[in-house]
Protein backbone atom coordinates (compact mmCIF):
# COMPACT_ATOMS: atom_id res chain seq x y z
CA UNK A 1 0.00 0.00 0.00
CA UNK A 2 1.30 3.42 -0.93
CA UNK A 3 -0.04 6.85 0.00
CA UNK A 4 0.62 9.97 -2.02
CA UNK A 5 1.35 12.68 0.51
CA UNK A 6 0.36 16.08 -0.97
CA UNK A 7 3.71 17.43 0.21
CA UNK A 8 6.16 14.54 -0.17
CA UNK A 9 4.69 12.57 -3.06
CA UNK A 10 4.11 8.83 -3.22
CA UNK A 11 5.50 7.04 -0.18
CA UNK A 12 5.48 3.61 1.36
CA UNK A 13 2.80 2.85 3.94
CA UNK A 14 5.40 2.29 6.67
CA UNK A 15 6.12 6.03 6.81
CA UNK A 16 2.56 6.73 7.96
CA UNK A 17 0.76 6.31 11.25
CA UNK A 18 -2.91 5.37 11.12
CA UNK A 19 -4.99 7.55 13.40
CA UNK A 20 -8.62 6.58 12.77
CA UNK A 21 -11.88 7.76 11.29
CA UNK A 22 -11.72 11.32 9.98
CA UNK A 23 -14.76 12.03 12.15
CA UNK A 24 -12.12 13.33 14.56
CA UNK A 25 -12.10 16.50 12.44
CA UNK A 26 -15.79 17.07 13.22
CA UNK A 27 -15.39 17.93 16.88
CA UNK A 28 -18.70 19.13 18.38
CA UNK A 29 -18.97 22.53 20.04
CA UNK A 30 -18.25 22.55 23.76
CA UNK A 31 -21.93 23.12 24.55
CA UNK A 32 -23.23 20.51 22.09
CA UNK A 33 -25.73 18.00 23.54
CA UNK A 34 -24.38 14.79 25.12
CA UNK A 35 -25.66 12.74 22.15
CA UNK A 36 -23.35 14.69 19.82
CA UNK A 37 -20.37 14.04 22.07
CA UNK A 38 -21.36 10.39 22.49
CA UNK A 39 -21.41 9.96 18.72
CA UNK A 40 -18.15 11.82 18.27
CA UNK A 41 -16.28 9.82 20.88
CA UNK A 42 -17.85 6.35 20.76
CA UNK A 43 -19.81 5.65 17.58
CA UNK A 44 -18.03 4.54 14.42
CA UNK A 45 -19.28 3.02 11.19
CA UNK A 46 -17.54 -0.06 9.87
CA UNK A 47 -17.96 0.52 6.15
CA UNK A 48 -17.42 -2.05 3.43
CA UNK A 49 -16.39 0.40 0.74
CA UNK A 50 -15.31 4.01 0.76
CA UNK A 51 -14.15 5.50 4.04
CA UNK A 52 -12.23 8.58 5.19
CA UNK A 53 -9.38 8.14 7.64
CA UNK A 54 -6.88 10.37 9.34
CA UNK A 55 -3.27 9.42 8.80
CA UNK A 56 -0.11 11.08 10.05
CA UNK A 57 3.02 11.28 7.92
CA UNK A 58 5.09 10.54 10.97
CA UNK A 59 8.31 9.41 9.28
CA UNK A 60 8.02 12.08 6.61
CA UNK A 61 6.92 15.69 6.63
CA UNK A 62 4.76 15.33 9.79
CA UNK A 63 1.56 16.45 8.03
CA UNK A 64 -1.85 15.20 9.09
CA UNK A 65 -3.71 13.73 6.12
CA UNK A 66 -7.24 12.75 5.23
CA UNK A 67 -7.03 9.58 3.16
CA UNK A 68 -10.10 8.42 1.25
CA UNK A 69 -9.88 4.71 0.53
CA UNK A 70 -11.94 1.65 -0.23
CA UNK A 71 -11.90 -0.99 2.50
CA UNK A 72 -13.07 -3.68 0.07
CA UNK A 73 -10.54 -3.10 -2.73
CA UNK A 74 -7.79 -1.35 -0.70
CA UNK A 75 -7.74 1.32 -3.39
CA UNK A 76 -6.57 4.73 -2.19
CA UNK A 77 -8.92 7.23 -3.82
CA UNK A 78 -7.55 10.51 -2.59
CA UNK A 79 -5.27 12.22 -0.09
CA UNK A 80 -5.65 15.75 1.25
CA UNK A 81 -3.97 17.79 3.95
CA UNK A 82 -6.15 17.81 7.05
CA UNK A 83 -5.35 21.52 7.38
CA UNK A 84 -6.90 22.10 3.93
CA UNK A 85 -9.97 20.01 4.76
CA UNK A 86 -10.42 21.75 8.06
CA UNK A 87 -9.14 25.22 7.22
CA UNK A 88 -7.88 27.45 9.97
CA UNK A 89 -10.79 26.83 12.32
CA UNK A 90 -10.22 25.63 15.86
Amino acid at each position, binding site marked *: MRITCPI*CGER*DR*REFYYVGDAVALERPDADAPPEAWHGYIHLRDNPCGVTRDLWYHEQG*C*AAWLVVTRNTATHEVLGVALASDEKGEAR
Partner: protein
Amino acid sequence: MVELAPKSPLAGLVPVTVGRMTLTEVDLGRLTSVAPYRGRDEGLSEALKAAHGIAAPEPGRVTGRVAARASGRDEACAIWFGQRMFLLAGADPDPALAQYAALSDQSDGWACARIQGRGATQVLARLTPIDLRPAAFRRGHTARTELQHMAASITRLGEDDYLILVFRALAGTLVQDVRQAMQGVAARGGG
Protein backbone atom coordinates in the same frame (compact mmCIF):
# COMPACT_ATOMS: atom_id res chain seq x y z
CA MET B 1 36.25 24.52 37.58
CA VAL B 2 35.55 21.63 35.25
CA GLU B 3 36.66 22.08 31.65
CA LEU B 4 34.10 20.44 29.39
CA ALA B 5 35.41 19.26 26.05
CA PRO B 6 32.87 19.48 23.20
CA LYS B 7 32.29 16.17 21.48
CA SER B 8 30.64 15.86 18.09
CA PRO B 9 27.77 13.35 17.74
CA LEU B 10 29.73 10.91 15.58
CA ALA B 11 33.10 11.28 17.34
CA GLY B 12 34.77 7.91 17.63
CA LEU B 13 32.15 6.23 15.41
CA VAL B 14 33.33 7.37 11.99
CA PRO B 15 34.99 7.38 9.51
CA VAL B 16 33.85 4.00 8.26
CA THR B 17 35.32 2.78 4.98
CA VAL B 18 34.01 -0.28 3.17
CA GLY B 19 35.13 -0.93 -0.39
CA ARG B 20 35.03 2.43 -2.15
CA MET B 21 32.42 3.83 0.18
CA THR B 22 33.04 6.10 3.12
CA LEU B 23 30.81 7.29 5.92
CA THR B 24 32.05 10.48 7.55
CA GLU B 25 30.84 13.15 9.90
CA VAL B 26 29.82 16.53 8.55
CA ASP B 27 29.98 19.79 10.45
CA LEU B 28 27.05 21.86 9.19
CA GLY B 29 27.69 24.59 11.72
CA ARG B 30 24.81 26.22 13.51
CA LEU B 31 21.48 24.52 12.80
CA THR B 32 18.21 26.40 13.21
CA SER B 33 14.76 25.11 12.37
CA VAL B 34 12.71 27.82 10.70
CA ALA B 35 8.91 27.44 10.70
CA PRO B 36 7.13 30.32 8.96
CA TYR B 37 4.06 31.82 10.58
CA ARG B 38 0.88 31.69 8.51
CA GLY B 39 0.95 34.23 5.72
CA ARG B 40 4.56 35.18 6.44
CA ASP B 41 6.26 32.87 3.94
CA GLU B 42 7.08 35.55 1.38
CA GLY B 43 8.44 38.00 3.93
CA LEU B 44 10.53 35.22 5.40
CA SER B 45 12.06 34.32 2.06
CA GLU B 46 12.88 37.98 1.40
CA ALA B 47 14.43 38.40 4.85
CA LEU B 48 16.40 35.21 4.36
CA LYS B 49 17.73 36.44 1.02
CA ALA B 50 18.68 39.80 2.49
CA ALA B 51 20.42 38.33 5.53
CA HIS B 52 21.87 35.06 4.27
CA GLY B 53 21.73 35.23 0.47
CA ILE B 54 19.42 32.24 0.03
CA ALA B 55 15.70 31.77 -0.57
CA ALA B 56 13.45 29.56 1.52
CA PRO B 57 13.42 26.06 0.00
CA GLU B 58 10.35 24.51 -1.55
CA PRO B 59 9.23 21.11 -0.20
CA GLY B 60 11.79 18.44 -1.02
CA ARG B 61 14.43 20.96 -2.10
CA VAL B 62 17.44 22.80 -0.76
CA THR B 63 18.78 26.30 -1.37
CA GLY B 64 22.39 27.37 -1.22
CA ARG B 65 25.30 25.02 -1.76
CA VAL B 66 24.71 22.14 0.60
CA ALA B 67 27.56 20.06 -0.83
CA ALA B 68 29.99 22.93 -0.28
CA ARG B 69 28.68 23.45 3.25
CA ALA B 70 29.00 19.72 3.91
CA SER B 71 32.58 19.91 2.64
CA GLY B 72 33.39 22.50 5.28
CA ARG B 73 32.83 25.75 3.36
CA ASP B 74 31.73 28.54 5.66
CA GLU B 75 28.48 29.44 3.95
CA ALA B 76 24.78 29.15 4.68
CA CYS B 77 22.33 26.75 3.11
CA ALA B 78 18.75 25.71 3.78
CA ILE B 79 17.33 22.19 3.74
CA TRP B 80 13.57 21.60 3.61
CA PHE B 81 12.81 19.78 6.83
CA GLY B 82 9.10 18.97 6.96
CA GLN B 83 5.68 20.51 6.59
CA ARG B 84 6.14 24.29 6.75
CA MET B 85 9.66 23.98 8.12
CA PHE B 86 13.23 24.11 6.91
CA LEU B 87 16.64 23.88 8.50
CA LEU B 88 19.01 26.83 8.19
CA ALA B 89 22.56 25.46 8.34
CA GLY B 90 25.88 27.20 8.67
CA ALA B 91 24.80 30.63 9.88
CA ASP B 92 23.67 32.38 13.01
CA PRO B 93 20.08 33.25 12.11
CA ASP B 94 19.49 36.95 11.56
CA PRO B 95 17.22 38.27 14.35
CA ALA B 96 14.96 39.80 11.67
CA LEU B 97 13.83 36.29 10.71
CA ALA B 98 11.99 36.01 14.03
CA GLN B 99 9.29 38.39 12.73
CA TYR B 100 8.33 35.84 10.11
CA ALA B 101 9.02 32.44 11.59
CA ALA B 102 9.49 30.44 14.76
CA LEU B 103 13.22 29.81 15.15
CA SER B 104 14.62 26.99 17.20
CA ASP B 105 18.28 26.16 17.74
CA GLN B 106 18.88 22.53 16.80
CA SER B 107 22.67 22.61 16.63
CA ASP B 108 23.26 19.90 19.20
CA GLY B 109 20.25 17.83 18.18
CA TRP B 110 21.38 16.15 15.01
CA ALA B 111 24.04 13.70 13.94
CA CYS B 112 25.14 14.74 10.44
CA ALA B 113 26.77 12.12 8.24
CA ARG B 114 27.82 11.85 4.64
CA ILE B 115 28.05 8.65 2.62
CA GLN B 116 30.07 8.83 -0.56
CA GLY B 117 31.53 6.51 -3.14
CA ARG B 118 30.32 3.99 -5.67
CA GLY B 119 27.62 1.86 -4.08
CA ALA B 120 26.29 4.57 -1.75
CA THR B 121 22.94 4.66 -3.54
CA GLN B 122 22.60 0.89 -3.18
CA VAL B 123 23.38 1.19 0.51
CA LEU B 124 20.61 3.72 1.05
CA ALA B 125 18.23 1.66 -1.07
CA ARG B 126 18.60 -1.06 1.57
CA LEU B 127 17.66 1.32 4.34
CA THR B 128 15.01 3.73 3.07
CA PRO B 129 11.77 3.21 1.13
CA ILE B 130 12.06 6.37 -1.00
CA ASP B 131 12.71 6.21 -4.73
CA LEU B 132 16.41 7.03 -5.12
CA ARG B 133 16.56 6.69 -8.89
CA PRO B 134 18.20 9.81 -10.38
CA ALA B 135 15.06 10.77 -12.27
CA ALA B 136 13.06 10.88 -9.02
CA PHE B 137 15.68 12.04 -6.53
CA ARG B 138 18.21 14.41 -8.05
CA ARG B 139 21.14 16.36 -6.70
CA GLY B 140 19.67 19.05 -4.46
CA HIS B 141 16.58 17.00 -3.66
CA THR B 142 15.90 16.22 -0.02
CA ALA B 143 13.41 14.01 1.82
CA ARG B 144 12.19 13.39 5.32
CA THR B 145 11.83 9.65 5.45
CA GLU B 146 12.75 6.50 7.28
CA LEU B 147 16.28 5.14 7.47
CA GLN B 148 15.93 1.62 8.80
CA HIS B 149 13.56 2.56 11.65
CA MET B 150 14.95 6.02 12.29
CA ALA B 151 13.38 9.32 11.29
CA ALA B 152 15.91 10.87 8.93
CA SER B 153 16.61 13.73 6.58
CA ILE B 154 18.33 12.56 3.41
CA THR B 155 19.75 14.98 0.82
CA ARG B 156 21.38 13.99 -2.44
CA LEU B 157 24.67 15.81 -2.98
CA GLY B 158 25.83 13.85 -6.03
CA GLU B 159 25.43 10.59 -7.92
CA ASP B 160 26.75 8.48 -5.02
CA ASP B 161 26.92 11.19 -2.41
CA TYR B 162 24.35 11.84 0.33
CA LEU B 163 23.90 13.89 3.46
CA ILE B 164 22.07 12.07 6.26
CA LEU B 165 20.70 13.64 9.44
CA VAL B 166 19.23 11.66 12.33
CA PHE B 167 18.57 12.57 15.95
CA ARG B 168 21.83 12.78 17.84
CA ALA B 169 20.71 10.05 20.27
CA LEU B 170 20.61 7.64 17.31
CA ALA B 171 24.17 8.30 16.14
CA GLY B 172 25.42 4.85 17.14
CA THR B 173 22.47 3.10 15.52
CA LEU B 174 22.95 5.13 12.34
CA VAL B 175 26.57 4.09 12.00
CA GLN B 176 25.81 0.46 12.82
CA ASP B 177 22.96 0.23 10.30
CA VAL B 178 24.79 2.05 7.51
CA ARG B 179 27.97 0.05 8.09
CA GLN B 180 26.06 -3.21 7.87
CA ALA B 181 24.41 -2.13 4.63
CA MET B 182 27.78 -1.00 3.24
CA GLN B 183 29.24 -4.41 4.02
CA GLY B 184 26.27 -6.12 2.37
CA VAL B 185 26.60 -4.07 -0.81
CA ALA B 186 30.38 -4.54 -0.91
CA ALA B 187 30.01 -8.31 -0.40
CA ARG B 188 27.86 -8.46 -3.50
CA GLY B 189 30.44 -6.53 -5.50
CA GLY B 190 28.46 -3.33 -5.54
CA GLY B 191 30.82 -1.04 -3.64
